[in-house]
């Protein structure tokens, strides 16, 4: 039995920051050998994000610990002739090539799809750019949070009643697009297995983001309606919100779908009178009087912790859960029972990272390598895979080709 579905698959990952490494490690988690190309001239910004794993190693942040797992990091300066020659050698043996430079950049390095295809005819190459390879905004520079603003996610994000969005300020599209890229590559591998043909895949993160909007975009299509932030409210459920609990920054979510659940909530709050209160007589009424109802619910939740509220309501079959902080999730019995946090032996010490977000019955497999350090696999990749001698590698390091 094969241990991993993608054994014997080689991926060259020129991509950096977040989405492209996520794509790489998703394939790596499934057994592919994924080589991550980096340069000290412009280190991957993920490496800088504090906190650092070790004060003597400023380029080994804990963000990288999660994102760069199952990748083989090598240094390579693609602006040098020798560096490009090595890149071509790598591509010759690659099944998959990943890049997320600004469109046009790969051509400068001699690594555009036509060039790559001439080196390896059945290669699958994927570009994860901001806006796709063509069109008037193709060269736009973005971070994940810009993608979510451009892509129509942020405009609906915010407190109810505020027209000003409370933008994520984070980068939700990055992990999403990395995973989507993995789906694209896997599907293309399936096609290659059937036909022997590789191909080029143009993934525009902006477009991909706009495919995840659901209701609001269809409301515009059907009715020309522009929706505004709904806070934590829902169109079909009420109450539906996040309520303050006892303790510092302690919050619980509650979502009520049916009349039975509403009565269950009233009982839990020891307010059976509310079950007959016409202000809250059905979902529509509760939505109309949501603020008032929130006040009543908060008076109850604020006397308990989010865990207490959750236990009580879930026992009554009502959807409720704490808004977990990172620390709480780390200690949570469910995540721990399912082995979601994985301890790895990193060269700089033990580290715990998040695991693969699904469980397999037959080939549990799992994360094989802790996050790669900068250039950690230079000897392995350039020596064992590409057949360069120790002396050649030393020389290339000295010449800052491997830099």
């Amino acid at each position: 039995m094969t241990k991993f579905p993608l054994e014997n698959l080689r991926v060259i990952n020129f991509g950096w920051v977040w989405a492209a490494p996520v794509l790489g490690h998703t394939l790596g988690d499934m057994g592919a050998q994924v080589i991550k190309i980096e340069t000290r001239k412009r280190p991957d910004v993920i490496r800088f994000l504090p906190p650092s794993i070790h004060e003597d190693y400023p380029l080994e942040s804990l963000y990288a610990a999660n994102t760069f797992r199952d990748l083989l990091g090598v240094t390579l300066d693609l602006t040098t002739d020798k560096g490009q020659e090595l890149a071509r050698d790598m591509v010759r043996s690659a099944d998959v090539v990943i890049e997320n430079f600004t469109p046009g950049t790969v051509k400068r390095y001699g690594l555009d799809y036509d060039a790559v295809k001439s080196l390896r005819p059945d290669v699958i190459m994927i570009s994860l750019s901001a806006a796709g390879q063509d069109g008037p905004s193709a060269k736009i520079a973005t971070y994940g949070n810009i993608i979510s603003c451009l892509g129509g996610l942020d405009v609906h994000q915010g407190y109810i009643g505020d027209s000003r969005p409370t933008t994520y300020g984070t980068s939700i599209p990055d992990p999403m697009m990395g995973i989507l890229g993995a789906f694209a590559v896997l599907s293309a591998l399936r096609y290659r297995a059937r036909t022997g043909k590789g191909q080029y895949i143009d993934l525009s993160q902006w477009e991909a983001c706009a495919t995840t909007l659901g209701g609001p975009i269809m409301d515009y299509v059907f009715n020309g309606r522009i929706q505004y932030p709904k806070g934590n409210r829902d169109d079909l459920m009420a109450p539906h919100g996040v309520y303050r609990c006892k303790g510092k920054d302690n919050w619980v979510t509650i979502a009520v779908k049916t009349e039975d659940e509403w009565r269950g909530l009233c009982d839990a709050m020891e307010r059976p009178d509310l079950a007959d209160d016409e202000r809250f007589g059905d979902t529509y009424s509760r939505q109309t009087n949501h603020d008032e109802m929130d006040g009543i619910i908060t008076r109850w939740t604020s006397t308990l912790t989010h865990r207490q509220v959750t236990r009580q309501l879930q026992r009554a079959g009502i959807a409720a859960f704490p808004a977990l902080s990172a620390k709480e999730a780390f200690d949570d019995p469910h995540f721990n029972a399912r082995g979601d946090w994985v301890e790895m032996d990193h060269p700089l010490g033990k580290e715990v990272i998040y695991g693969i977000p699904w469980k397999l019955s037959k080939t549990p497999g799992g994360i094989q390598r802790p996050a790669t350090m900068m250039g950690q696999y230079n000897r392995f990749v350039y020596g064992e895979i590409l057949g360069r001698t120790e002396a050649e590698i030393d020389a290339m390091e000295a010449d800052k080709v491997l830099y």
Partner: protein
Amino acid sequence: MESLLSDVTVLDLTQAVAGPYCAKLLADYGAEVIKIERPGTGDVARRIGPFPNDVPHSEKSGVFLALNTNKKSVTVNLKTETGRRILRDLVPQVDILLESYRPGVMAKWGFGFDDVRRIKPDIVVTSISSFGQWGPYRDYEMTELIAYAMGVGMHCTGVPDREPLKLAGTATLFQAGNTAAVAAIGAYFGSQADGVGQHVDYSIMEGQASSVDRNGASLMAMAYAGEPTFRRAFGRRFSVLPFGAYPCADGYAHFTSAQQAWWPIFCSMIGMPELSEDPRYTGENFQNLDLAEEIDELFLPWILSHAKREIMELCNEIAGSPINTMEDLFADPHFRQREFFVEVDHPAAGPMEYPGPPFRPAATPWKKGRAPLLGEHNEEVLTGRLGFTRTDLVKLARMGVI
């Protein structure tokens, strides 16, 4: 035309958003997806809307129409013995089975993984659930709100001192469907290689916890450093440069500006190049957050007199961006030139524009297609694949099986 997944057949027992999005990805890239729906009512998304002209109609729900393109709808009542037999007979004909029932329901009906594997040893069953197939919270009630709360994303979304915010829309569920599709295809690769089937247990909350956002992704970083997760205020910034959402001439724009190298670009942009080297704002003062208000006073007249489209052009260099509405997306010249939106006709809803491909494989294009009517493919699948006669189908329909 040949597509990426032309040789893959999928039995889809999911409904609502996450599972159907997973199946949609597979269908839009070529897999044959047989969607089993409950007779009479069908997928719950048929009732979610939005509806054209706000008139509810089970064949016109926007969420359903967008999420079920290229699938075949077969109505089967799994609470009947014959309904379950139909399902048993379909299992040997498919490669992947997707389901999103509560843990235990499939087994109760005789379709636990071991049952299904006896019928077809190399099948991949992908279960999409709230909390997974086992673990202390397995039977907890969940909605999207709760998935986001458990996944840590919520605790760091919103502003300090106010309640944490849910992620808008249903992006969390789309992400879940996307991840489940990766898991399903990965497992399918494995089963193709060794002929051994696989049960993929995908839980929405684990998908969230492993990838929600920058704060969530640093879950461990936070745990190591003992730092709590936090919500950012609107104006919390890293330098004197603008940060967060600002009003502009026709809506809102967002700035994530932080780098000192961007200061001169910013000064030229707002027509004050003379400030480029002004020691009041450069050097050590660049990080003096007490100056933020002063800078905003200089910046607001400029930003308020510029429209989103201009901001897209002028502010890109300093990580400024319009916050696009749905109207903006439809009008966007880049989207138009790349023909992102596609017009699809539907027998009930008529021709409408829908979001197009999430990625574009050059040799095997994404399939433009429409969502099925409820039970539209009963005859094709039940007669074509299982050999029922048309008379059988009439009978089965009257008996409430299909």
